[in-house]
C-alpha cells in the first residue's frame, strides 16, 4: 500500500481536527517524514506541542491552528478542505458522531450531492494472498439496496486504485441460497443481475456467498458451488455494520490483520479512525487517503 502512495509524487495537505492525540500525531509525523503529506494540526496548540515534545517530534514541520473545542476544530478542518486550503480532513481525538456532523453539514460540509456516505476498509491479512477490501464496518448500520449498490461502487473504485482492474466482489451472507425471507439475499440477487447488465461496472460480482466460498477456493470444490468469485474475492460486502465491524476486529485480533479505511461519498477524502487504533493503522489510513485523493 505504502509503495503505491510514494509513487504519486505529490504532497497532500491534511487538516487534523483536535489533533492532541499521540497516535494521530505519530502517524501524521511519519507521513510527513516520508514526503507525501503536510499537516495542519487544529486544536489546543499548547497541548499538541506538549505531545510532540514528549514523543521527540520536531513540531516545526507542522502548521498549528488554534481551536477551543472539538466541535469548532472539526468545522475548521472541514472548512479548510472545502476552501481548498487542505486536501484531506482527518479526525483526531474527537468522537466520530461530532466529527461527521461537521463533514455532513448541509451548507459547509463535504458531502457530494445525493451521495451515500459510507466507509471502505482495506485489510492486509497474513493468511490471505492479497489485499481484502471490506464494507461497511463504520457508517451505515443496515444498508438498503441503493446503499449497498453505492457501497459496492466505492469498494470497486478503491480496489481499482490499487491496480485491480476488475475486482471480484463477494456479497456476504450466511449461505449462498436466495431466500425471500432474507432481505439481504434478495438485494444481493438484484445486485448480481445489475452487474450482469453492466449497471454496476468493472467487477465480477456474486452473492449471496459465505466467507468460505468468497475467500477459500478449496471450499468451492467441497460445496460444489459454481461461482465466478471462486474463493478469490477482492472485496467483501457485508449485510450490516454489525456483521462487518466484528469481522475486521476479529481478523485484527486473531489473524494479525491490519486495516486502513476511508469515508466515501465526500468531495475530498475523510479519514476516520477509532481513537483506540494504533499509530500504524492511522498511518496506513493516511497513506490510503492520499492514494484516493
Amino acid at each position, binding site marked *: 500500500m505504502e509503495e503505491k502512495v510514494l509513487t504519486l509524487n505529490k504532497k497532500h495537505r491534511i487538516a487534523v481536527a483536535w489533533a492532541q492525540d499521540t497516535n494521530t500525531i505519530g502517524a501524521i509525523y511519519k507521513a510527513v517524514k516520508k514526503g507525501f503529506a503536510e499537516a495542519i494540526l487544529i486544536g489546543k496548540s499548547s497541548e499538541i506541542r506538549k505531545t510532540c515534545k514528549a514523543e521527540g517530534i520536531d513540531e516545526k514541520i507542522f502548521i498549528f491552528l488554534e481551536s477551543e473545542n472539538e466541535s469548532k476544530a472539526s468545522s475548521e478542518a472541514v472548512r479548510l478542505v472545502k476552501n481548498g486550503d487542505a486536501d484531506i480532513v482527518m479526525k483526531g481525538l474527537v468522537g466520530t458522531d461530532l466529527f461527521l456532523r461537521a463533514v455532513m453539514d448541509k451548507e459547509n460540509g463535504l458531502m457530494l450531492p445525493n451521495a451515500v456516505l459510507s466507509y471502505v476498509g482495506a485489510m492486509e491479512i497474513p493468511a490471505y494472498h492479497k489485499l481484502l477490501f471490506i464494507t461497511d464496518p463504520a457508517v451505515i448500520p443496515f444498508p438498503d*439496496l*441503493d446503499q449497498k449498490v453505492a457501497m459496492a461502487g466505492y469498494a470497486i473504485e478503491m480496489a481499482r486504485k490499487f491496480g485491480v482492474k476488475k475486482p471480484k466482489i463477494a456479497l456476504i451472507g450466511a449461505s*449462498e*441460497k*436466495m431466500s*425471500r425471507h432474507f432481505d439481504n*439475499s*434478495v438485494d*444481493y*440477487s*438484484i445486485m*448480481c*443481475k*445489475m452487474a*450482469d*447488465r*453492466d*449497471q454496476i461496472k468493472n467487477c465480477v460480482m456474486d452473492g449471496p456467498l459465505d466467507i468460505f466460498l468468497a475467500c477459500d477456493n478449496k471450499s468451492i470444490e467441497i460445496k460444489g*458451488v*459454481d461461482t465466478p468469485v471462486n474463493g478469490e474475492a477482492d472485496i467483501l460486502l457485508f449485510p450490516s455494520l454489525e456483521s462487518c465491524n466484528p469481522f475486521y476486529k476479529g481478523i485484527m485480533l486473531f489473524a494479525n490483520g491490519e486495516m486502513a479505511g476511508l469515508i466515501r461519498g465526500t468531495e475530498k477524502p475523510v479519514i476516520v479512525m477509532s481513537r483506540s487504533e494504533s499509530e500504524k493503522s492511522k498511518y496506513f489510513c493516511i497513506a490510503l487517503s492520499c492514494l484516493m485523493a
Partner: protein
Amino acid sequence: MVLKNMNELKRLVEGGPRKKLILAAAHDQHSLGAVIRAWKDNIIEPIFVGDKAGIESICASNNYDITGLRIIHEPESEMSVETAVKMASSNQADILMKGKIGSATLLKCVLNKEWGLRTGNLLSHFALFEVETYHKVIAVTDVAMNIAPTLQDKIAIVNNSVACLNRLGYKIPKVAVLGAVEMVNENMKATLDAALLSKMNQRDQIRNCIIDGPLAFDNAVSLESAQLKGIKSEVAGDTDLLLMPDIEVGNVLYKSLVFFAKAKVASIILGAKVPIVLTSRSDSELAKFDSILLAAAACK
C-alpha cells in the same frame, strides 16, 4: 433437443401407447371434433362423460363413428364434471378435457380437496406456439390463469412449465423472464423478480433449466436485438419458455401471436394430477387438436 413445430410434437406422441382422455360434459359440439380426430390418429382413447343422447346425436350429425367408445351417462353438466374428475383422480384417465361447461366450474371440481386433482402445486396455464418467424416452438406462461403472480407463484409456474418441457424432451430449456426492459429497475417489480429467479436458478434452487431475465421481448427472441444492446445472456435469442410478468401482458401476447402472427397454439393447464385441456369456443379446431397432442405429450 427442441421441437421445431407442431408436427414434431405430433411425432413425439405417435406410435406410443394411447393416452386415456376423459371429456367432461361431453355433449359438446365444440370439443368432440378434436377429440375424435385425436382418437382417429391413435393419440388418445376417449372416455365421454355427459348426456348420452346428446353425445350420440352430435356424433351422428357430424358422422363421427364412436362405436366401441365408452360413454358414461351423466346428463347434468356439473355432475358429469365431478364424475370425470373423480375418474381422473383415481387413475382411470391420463388427461382431463373440458366439454360443455364453464372453466370456472371445471376448475372448482379440479381443486376439490377431497376428490379433486390437487397435488399441492399451483395450477398454471402453459401455451406452446409455432410461429413462422421463430426458429422453433416457443412456450408462454401464464397467460390465462394466474392474474398477478407473486415471486412464489412465479417459481411454481416456472417449475410446472420446465417439468412439462422436460417431458417433451427438453433437457435444459432456456427460460426468459420478461420485463419491459433488460435492466434492473427498482420501480419495476418484473425486473426484480427476474433477478431473483435468475439467482435461484444459478444456485440450483430452480432446476433443469437456464433462467435469464429481465429481458425485453425483443431481446428474448432475437439474438441480434440482444447483441445490439450488448446483453450477455445464454437465453437471449434462443428462448424456449417466456415467463410473463402478469396475465394482462401474457394474454395480449397470446392473442397477438394468434391474430397477427397467425401462430399455431396448443394450451394446457399444468400443476394438477393430470394435464387439463381447457379449450374455448373461440379456439380453432387445429388449436383444440394440438392442445390434445400437447396434453398427451405432457403426460407423465
